[in-house]
């Protein structure tokens, strides 16, 4: 019996040595540990032995099986941990498999940023119609018929029934009185949206563009409040400390009215080609809401004060991304949109 055990062990060790891969290892495993293996026969033959013999050989056979299992496991680990450097080589520099990604339009990205900043400052996002009555686009914001300011905004007129004409809104200010009619101050709101001007296009002019309107109304809103909101917004938007400069200007729906500049985002005010060496970049118009606008909204005269300001989304996007031609925004060229 002893002899038989030793023989099996010796043969197996020899066979195991010749094993070259996992496949031949499995053959060895079946041959020595399988149901029909010599070891299985040996285990079977033990059953027929006397109790003393069983006690003598049993542990020996079990030890042999354990040792065989162990050796095969070791061999198995060896093969699993080792690999063929040549046949299993891959080119890690080849491009990865990518799902084609779509892209948001840059104006959407900029608009979202702006909306997020204003929302955190407690502003409501409002919307209004793009085709508008003459009243809300002009009269309500203190631009009555024959007002010279109507000339400042070249208007697309829309045919409606029975000699009534509407306009393609020339600014987002059309929403000012619409919103005020529905709400009682104090409030803070913004209106982003598409506006239209009947003018020829070039690298810096478009007949279709987007504006952003801000309106804050309360019991004692001041120029100082406007400066604070404007500074906070632009600093957030450009992730820099932005200063605001206010200059006198004229818009019929505000009094006092101003144009506002921000400190140049490129040179931080020291003067460069972006700001034409002035250190300032003209961004938009603003002012204290004209009492006539409050009257148009049905508010009592002199009960409230407020500020309104507006600027072009395209202009901010052009500043942020250094885009040199406004016509790209509506050009529909996917090579433009996919850069953002």
């Amino acid at each position: 019996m002893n002899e038989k055990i030793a023989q099996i062990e010796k043969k197996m060790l020899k066979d195991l040595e010749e094993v070259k891969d996992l496949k031949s290892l499995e053959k060895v495993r079946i041959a020595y540990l399988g149901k029909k293996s010599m070891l299985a026969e040996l285990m079977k033959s033990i059953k027929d032995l006397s109790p003393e013999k069983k006690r003598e050989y049993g542990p020996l056979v079990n030890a042999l099986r354990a040792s065989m299992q162990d050796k095969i496991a070791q061999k198995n680990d060896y093969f699993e941990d080792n690999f063929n450097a040549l046949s299993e080589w891959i080119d890690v520099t080849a491009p990865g498999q990518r799902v084609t990604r779509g892209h948001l339009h840059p104006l959407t990205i900029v608009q979202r940023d702006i909306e997020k900043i204003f929302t955190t400052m407690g502003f409501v996002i409002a919307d209004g119609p793009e085709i508008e009555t003459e009243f809300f686009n002009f009269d309500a914001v203190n631009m009555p018929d024959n007002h010279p300011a109507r000339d400042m905004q070249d208007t697309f007129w829309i045919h409606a029934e029975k000699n009534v004409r509407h306009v393609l809104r020339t600014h987002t200010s059309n929403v000012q009185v619409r919103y005020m009619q529905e709400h009682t101050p104090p409030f803070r709101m913004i209106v982003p949206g598409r506006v239209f001007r009947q003018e020829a296009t070039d690298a810096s002019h478009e007949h279709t563009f987007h504006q952003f309107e801000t309106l804050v109304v309360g019991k004692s809103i001041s120029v100082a409040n406007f400066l604070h909101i404007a500074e906070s917004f632009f600093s957030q938007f450009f992730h820099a400390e932005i200063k605001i400069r206010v200059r006198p200007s004229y818009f019929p729906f505000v009094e006092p009215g101003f144009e506002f500049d921000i400190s140049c985002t490129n040179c931080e005010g020291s003067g460069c080609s972006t700001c034409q060496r002035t250190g300032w970049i003209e961004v938009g118009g603003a002012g204290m809401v004209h009492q006539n606008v409050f009257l148009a909204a049905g508010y009592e005269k002199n009960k409230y004060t407020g500020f309104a300001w507006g600027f072009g989304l395209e202009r901010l996007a052009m500043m942020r991304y250094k885009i040199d031609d406004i016509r790209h925004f509506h050009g529909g060229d996917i090579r433009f949109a996919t850069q953002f």
Partner: protein
Amino acid sequence: MQYSYNWLKEISQTKKTAEEIAQLLLVHSFEVEELRDQRKGREDVVIGHVLQIASHPDADKLQIATVDVGEEKLQIVCGAPNLQKNQKVPVALVGAKLPNGLKIKKAKIRGIESRGMICAPDELDLGSENGGIMILKEDAPIGELFTTYKKLDDTILEIDVLPNRGHDALSHYGMAREIAMLEGRILNESHRQQQKYTQGIPVKILTPTCSRYCAISLSDIKIEPSPQWLQDKLTALGHNAINNVVDITNYIMLLTGQPIHAFQANFAPQITIRQAEKNEKVTLLDDTQLTLSKNDLLITDGKNPIALAGIMGGKSSAISNKTKEITLEIAHFDARTIRATKSRHNLHTDAAYRFERDIDPNLVDVAAFHAIKMFTEITGAKVKSITDIYPQESQVKKWSIALPHKEIEKILGTQIDQTYVQSILKNLDITLTQKNDVYLCHIPTIRRDLQSPEDLIEEIGRVYGYDKIKPKPLKEPVTIPHHNAQREYENHTKDLFVAEGYSEIKSYSYYAKNDAKQVGLNGKHITVLNPMSSEQEYMRRTLAVGILKSAAKNNSFTEESKLFEVGRFYIPSTSQKLPQEKMMLGLAYTKKSNRISHFHTLKGSIENFLTEQGLHNHYFSDDIPNDLTDAIIFHPTRQAFIRLDNNTICGVIGEIPKRTAKYFGIKNAQTIYAEIDLAVIEKAAKSNTGYQPLPKYPAVTRDLSMRVGKHTRVADIERTLSASAGNLLSDINLFDLYENKKNGERSMAFHILFQSQKKTLTADEVDVLIKKMILAVEKIADVEVKKI
């Protein structure tokens, strides 16, 4: 308007440089768009004396001049026909860079060396080229700098006067008044004609749109060129010098802001101002013939028009070189009338530019004073008579505004000293009476824009300096803003399609009539009354036009493009009310391969989108009526309605027909287009569909494969299978669809999943169900389940 720095300095007594004035105005008043130093570009131009002229050996039109420029004698090749020996001429030396950008270099012209250039007026930006080089007076000192000789020592400021300040600031007096005010002074006010005359030629005002008319009759006029200083001044400010009469009227307008017109006196023996008759004709100075309406205002000789009031004089009464007597008109007309006439007839003149900005009728006195002075001094004219009719005089006087001090501080948001406010108002020539903390302000008639307390607060704010106001946070309580659900939905939609590989575009809100027709929208559109091009005729009723144009553009450089747009379209209203604006989603998948239909590529993305909204029961149906008009035309057998249920269509999808694709410029490619009404989806979307417990027992999967007829639809099979399976069926998935190109036979294979929430299903239970399903599905014509 262009302003002369020297002139502003003389009137305002400022000590500031032109640059300092520009900065001062920028911060407190107006933007200065340009500063133009007259010396610039003319630094290296000197006075030369033409000593000799010889003809050029190789060119008929060229001559060789020897010019003495003081320090040396230069040989210059010149092509001017008026070049003559002994002339004094401006010579640009080698190295000069002229106002038009021309650099003067030593050159050989047709083989002859030329050192410098003899200049024409336009080359020095001093008027238009007229017949050759500029010829100077005989006594011009040789070698002297041209700018010194011509007294070109001014700086021209191009100032952008705000629309509400046109009435007081579009003149040198006006701008000097502004500068002095900013420096804390009141301008030493100009002289005025004090006396009122009514005894001159008869003047009748028959309309309220003329508030004042002053006619000054002058005799013994000799029409001739103006003195050089006057010509130079006008030229520098962009006006052509014409003759002494016209030049003086222009000069006074630039000085005071008041337009003046000169008639030949014998054509205006009497003057009547009236509205025009309907269809009345007038011929203007520049030979323009106009047909007028009742809203136009005329100056007549009692009968016939002699001028279109406030805009331009008439041809018939125009002065000529022989004129000896003239009548000067210094008047005031209604701003709206002038503006309307100007726009109606498209006449942009300096006079109209000022009248439409509602100048002060009292300016007439200032202009009359200067007119009388200059005409007598310069032309030797004698004042024959003056008539000054001023019907609205009683209405044009100072008005008062009560301004509480606390209002100023409230609106500006800063504390400001009362004495400071008083001095600002005083420097604005506003007289003050103060009661407690309220200023009662008496406004001078020149400042017609100051009508309300806010107008005054603006004056105080800008003079005080907005830069001195410290930013202050809002004090009003912040409430959490209502969210804009529609915007969030748009954003969500955009993000989902970006994840599907689609890129966002934005296209115009209008398109051409023919574009609409080509995509199939033959019905009513909202029309733009004043489009600039045919691309702006119709307000869009589909996003397809913009997206297909973009697809065509991208088609030239990509194999495949995926585009979307979220934007509004506009449904015409049948009443005077505003049209409905709908937020739509347009999608296009374009691929340069026509071998197979790409319908399902786009469909898959839309299915993902709808499923994400919890709209699991959506389906694509081909129940499209044949007689559909005024709808996007698709390939007839490759289109579907996108339905949420039997009653709700949320959109359409289909292959763009070849003819449409070709029209938009999409070549060798197939485009699948879909358009979805976002409001319908938003309304139906289920944002929270609740929680489904995870299965406790394993699912059993069976595959079923079948041959089906040529036009048997997947939906029909799925519906039959699911109807016959009972509630243990948990899912049916098509995993293979094969079409035999030769015989058109199709086969489909489905994964079918059974699952119970209560126990593990046995094979026998599932077999019974499968048999029932096979039985049911084989009842459909042309369906035969393959044996597994």
